């Protein structure tokens, strides 16, 4: 009981730090990428000064994320004359909490046996015993269903925000957001079903192990990869799918009437969602936390050569591998944001219903037929 509580408490603390930390870094990456593309220097002004010295830590402007957060916290919390203040205050939480929850089923490492980190016979080793835990907050056997179920709840927050703001721009943004998210969720679901048919499991950890044994999902399900990535970016409402909040038409769309940390929650949840989408892409299509030839005992190379590693080193390598993959996929998503122009609304709907959905259905049929013949 107590080891379970401790291990899962540590997992939750790590995942919160991972999501918030990486989301903050992605705000800096976004600025720097735009600067590089526009031949500018980019964010480089914010710094931390070591107390009682003149030493300033600039670190390429990495502290801009912290400065942004502080600015949001200390801004005036202006609220409009809404006709439903309860819904207005609830909306940012309904939009941001599901994004955090989705990560609960994502495995960010293999199995860990904490007792092996300590000297045999020590109190800590005795406390943990020889029990192992998956590096996953909630090891559900239907993990992929959890992803679909919880990500669908976030739409409610967006709709509530637009509706309760008593503003036509917000209302239009909410209507656009809801239509867009519902439309692309269908294609995303079908793409995921094709993945489930291929792997033969709905458990995300088993999917990672399947890829370790056979091949990465991007090689066996390339169409599903493209569909999932496209639909996920559309779900996140980012360029080229940012019609619900496009500044040239709707000011800020569904969160126009939000200020201070309430607006910060909407913005932060967008960047956290980049991390979560990247984590899902990595787990479903890029082998998750696994590295080629890395096994629980160390690196086992073809031909039988073995480079033995301690359990601690293997665990750290798995966690670092997962983090690095998530970072690269996240940077790729931000690269798309600075590369493609915004769709028109009819183009957006056409892409979702007339191209992605039939393609996802076709991919599912082909996958089912291939699976039928190979079983």
């Amino acid at each position: 009981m107590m080891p379970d509580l401790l291990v899962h408490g540590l997992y939750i603390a790590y995942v919160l730090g991972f999501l918030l930390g990486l989301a903050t870094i992605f705000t800096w990456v976004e600025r720097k990428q735009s600067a590089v593309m526009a031949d500018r220097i980019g964010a480089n002004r914010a710094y931390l000064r070591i107390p009682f010295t003149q030493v300033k830590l600039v670190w390429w402007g990495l502290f801009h994320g912290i400065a942004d957060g502080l600015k949001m916290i200390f801004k005036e919390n202006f609220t409009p004359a809404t006709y439903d203040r309860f819904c207005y205050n609830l909306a940012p939480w309904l939009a941001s909490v599901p994004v955090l929850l989705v990560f609960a089923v994502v495995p960010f490492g293999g199995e860990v046996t904490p007792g092996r980190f300590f000297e045999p016979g020590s109190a800590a080793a005795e406390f943990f015993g020889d029990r192992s835990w998956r590096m996953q907050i909630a090891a559900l056997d239907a993990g992929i269903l959890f992803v679909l179920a919880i990500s669908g709840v976030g739409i409610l927050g967006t709709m509530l925000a637009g509706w309760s703001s008593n503003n036509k721009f917000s209302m239009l943004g909410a209507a656009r957001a809801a239509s867009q998210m519902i439309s692309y969720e269908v294609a995303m679901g079908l793409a995921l079903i094709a993945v489930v048919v291929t792997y033969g499991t709905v458990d995300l950890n088993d999917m990672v192990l399947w890829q370790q044994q056979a091949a990465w999902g991007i090689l066996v399900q390339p169409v599903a990869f493209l569909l999932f990535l496209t639909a996920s970016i559309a779900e996140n409402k980012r360029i080229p799918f940012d019609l619900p909040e496009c500044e040239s038409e709707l000011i800020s769309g569904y969160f126009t009437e939000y200020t201070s940390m309430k607006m910060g929650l909407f913005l932060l949840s967008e960047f956290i969602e980049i991390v979560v989408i990247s984590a899902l892409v990595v787990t479903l299509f890029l082998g998750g936390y696994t590295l080629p030839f890395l096994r629980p005992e160390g690196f086992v190379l073809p031909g039988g050569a073995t480079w033995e590693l301690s359990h601690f080193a293997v665990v750290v390598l798995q966690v670092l591998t997962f983090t690095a993959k998530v970072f690269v996929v996240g940077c790729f998503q931000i690269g798309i944001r600075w590369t493609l122009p915004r769709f028109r609304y009819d183009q957006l709907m056409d892409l979702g219903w007339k191209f992605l959905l039939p393609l996802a259905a076709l991919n599912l049929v082909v996958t089912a037929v291939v699976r039928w013949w190979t079983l």
Partner: protein
Amino acid sequence: MIVDAFIVLFGVLALVFAGIVLVARQPMRAALALVAHMTSLAAIFACLDVHVIALFQVLIYVGAVMVFMVYTIMLLDDRDLAYRKRFSATLVPGVAVAVVTGLALLRVLGPAGPGAPTTTTGLGPFSFSAFSAAFMTRYWLHFELATVLLLAGIVAAWAVIREER
């Protein structure tokens, strides 16, 4: 022990939110209470270790059905204050149906009723594959028949709206 406490907690929450659905005047508040009620039911299923049912509860009812309901309420004319009427003409038959349903449930699920809870000793742990197999072989007809009830509900709602106009 802790699981039992959580089941009681979420059961009470489900009842409270169901009550709010009935008495809330504002349509959006009623819809949100229904969302909370569905989530509480999902939490009860999760406490009983039937995660798949809990997830379907959220996926279908909160993520799909309620999203469409909220969408529809969002597009209602906010100047229409009909929901502020204190009493509805259907209040009396509504209360009568609620009382009859309650008595019927008490009769069926009460200590001596045919649906009284029995011990689950001997049942294996819930598995997704066993659930899928049973659903597609034994229960699919029951499931499809339940959709007829939904259709009847839609027709009834449509008839009520027509009558009010």
